[in-house]
């Protein structure tokens, strides 16, 4: 039997709508489930008190500080490297052999699984450079992991700055460096910040790479050289070893809320950015 084009049209439309709604339903279900079980666990005491008895009781304050320290370290290292690379690719060179290798490396780094970053961080930072399990080892490992995201988003933001900005700046007698710092960078800033925020989200969500490089101690980290446990790792250990489902749900709910907020801020930034450059 041949289906008439018009009937086919209708069938396909229903199928595609169904697929989209299914995906939405799954997302809503996962988020709602975790929030429903975890939201009531989150209160001031949960956020501000240290875990006790392996995390069975008490809050998650040390893991929040640990997450913060590891993430900040990663961003502070990755941001200059990534933004610098982006400026080099966008402003300082034509497409040639070197840029091809840089792009290939960045795209390959983007595809490497986090567990491989973990292995590398363990053997290079923790053992070879003798940094032990520490905030610094974890931060450096994550920095490499987020580098490609920072490069790609920054380059896109820089390329979106209208060419006329540069021409005007040059015509006023500015050098290339002055043009980049005073004309291009400020206009690309929102786009760059968007990329940095997405990277922060990835750092917060990461488990495999951090557990192998920052360790999993529950003690409060006091310096870059102390070992620590991030929230995602804490959630993983609580859930996998069945230590405390209550606290696991609370931690997971907090992670989802954080990721949600980061996405909201990142989207507002990029929407303003697009609106401005039009």
């Amino acid at each position, binding site marked *: 039997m041949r289906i008439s*084009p*018009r009937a086919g*049209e209708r069938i*396909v439309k229903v199928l595609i709508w169904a*697929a*989209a709604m299914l*995906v939405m339903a799954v*997302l809503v279900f*996962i*988020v709602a*489930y*975790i929030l429903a079980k975890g939201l009531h666990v989150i209160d001031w005491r949960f956020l501000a008190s240290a875990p006790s008895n392996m995390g069975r009781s008490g809050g998650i304050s040390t893991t929040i500080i640990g997450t913060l320290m590891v993430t900040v370290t990663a961003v502070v290292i990755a941001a*200059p*490297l*990534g933004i*610098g*690379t982006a*400026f*080099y690719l966008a402003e*300082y060179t034509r497409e040639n052999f070197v840029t091809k*290798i840089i792009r290939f*490396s960045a*795209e*390959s*780094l983007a*595809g*490497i*699984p*986090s*567990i*491989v*970053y*973990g*292995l*590398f961080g363990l*053997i*290079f930072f923790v053992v*070879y450079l003798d940094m032990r399990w520490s905030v610094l080892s974890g931060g450096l490992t994550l920095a*490499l992991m987020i580098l490609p995201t920072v490069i790609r988003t920054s380059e896109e933001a820089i390329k979106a700055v209208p060419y006329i900005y540069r021409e005007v700046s040059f015509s006023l007698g500015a*050098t*290339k*460096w002055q043009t*980049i710092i005073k004309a291009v960078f400020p206009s690309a800033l929102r786009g760059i910040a968007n990329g940095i925020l997405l990277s922060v*989200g990835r750092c*917060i969500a*990461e*488990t*495999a790479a951090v*557990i*192998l490089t920052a360790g999993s101690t529950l003690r409060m980290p006091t310096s870059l050289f102390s070992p620590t446990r991030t929230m995602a790792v804490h*959630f*993983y250990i609580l*859930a*996998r070893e069945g230590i405390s489902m209550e606290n*696991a749900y609370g931690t*997971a709910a907090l*992670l989802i809320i954080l*990721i*949600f907020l980061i*996405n909201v801020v990142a989207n507002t930034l990029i929407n303003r950015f697009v609106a401005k450059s039009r």
Partner: protein
Amino acid sequence: MRRFKEKLSGRIFFVLALSSISALALITVFIVAKGAPIFVKVGVRDFVFGMSWAPGHGEFGIFPMIVGTLSVTLGAAVLGVPLGICCSIFLTEFAPSVLKSVFRPAIQLLAGIPSVVYGFWGLIFVVPFIRDRIGGPGLSILAGSVILAIMILPTVIMISEVSILALPRQYKQNALALGLTHWQTIRSVMLPAAKSGIVAAVILGVGRAVGETMAVIMVLGNAVALPKSILDPVRTLTTNIGIEMGYASGEHQQALFATGIVLFILIMILNSAAQFITRRK
């Protein structure tokens, strides 16, 4: 002085730009250096095709894990790819603008949720469902495939969407003007034209599935054996590293790095393929 500053800034940017090259080189060198001795000792063939993994007895065969990785990835692709492509068509062609502005951030949120959360959700929801309604122990290839299918959706959707949006407007307008229906236009004009981008999206999605660790560690059951059906538990290359790295030492640790080398090679092949396909245009 100004000249000097100009030159210096150019050099500095160049040095910064070398960071990703050096990172990739360092990662490759250190992982290979740490894992290679086990290839020499056991032999590449016995390592890759060996059936027995017993680090305590010096037996390092990862073939069941390669089968595990391939089967879970295939399952994720079968479930996730059609769904993802449908969603990207929905976003570009069918969604009213109100829904678009909800759907896109939702997909971004899906991409941002920590993988451990997916794994946990799978453990408390998908695994019992399979055990009670379908059969087997629940911890299985099927459970892993379902979770990974959800996790690769953002990659497949976002990259396919970009490649459909990048098509020249005339393609669609001309096809519609020739009297094709909307779906005929999509199927016979737009999808073929966006093919290379969609294929790249699928390959990158598959790469994500191959590399995912923490989500599947919770739902696969992690048994080192060749699976007989999709309801059997398996262990993948990534979970092998994730489970045992915490306490491994000596040869055992080297064998885990060697597992990492195999994984690394697999991913580099997929990445290069995706890059090759998107560059060719």
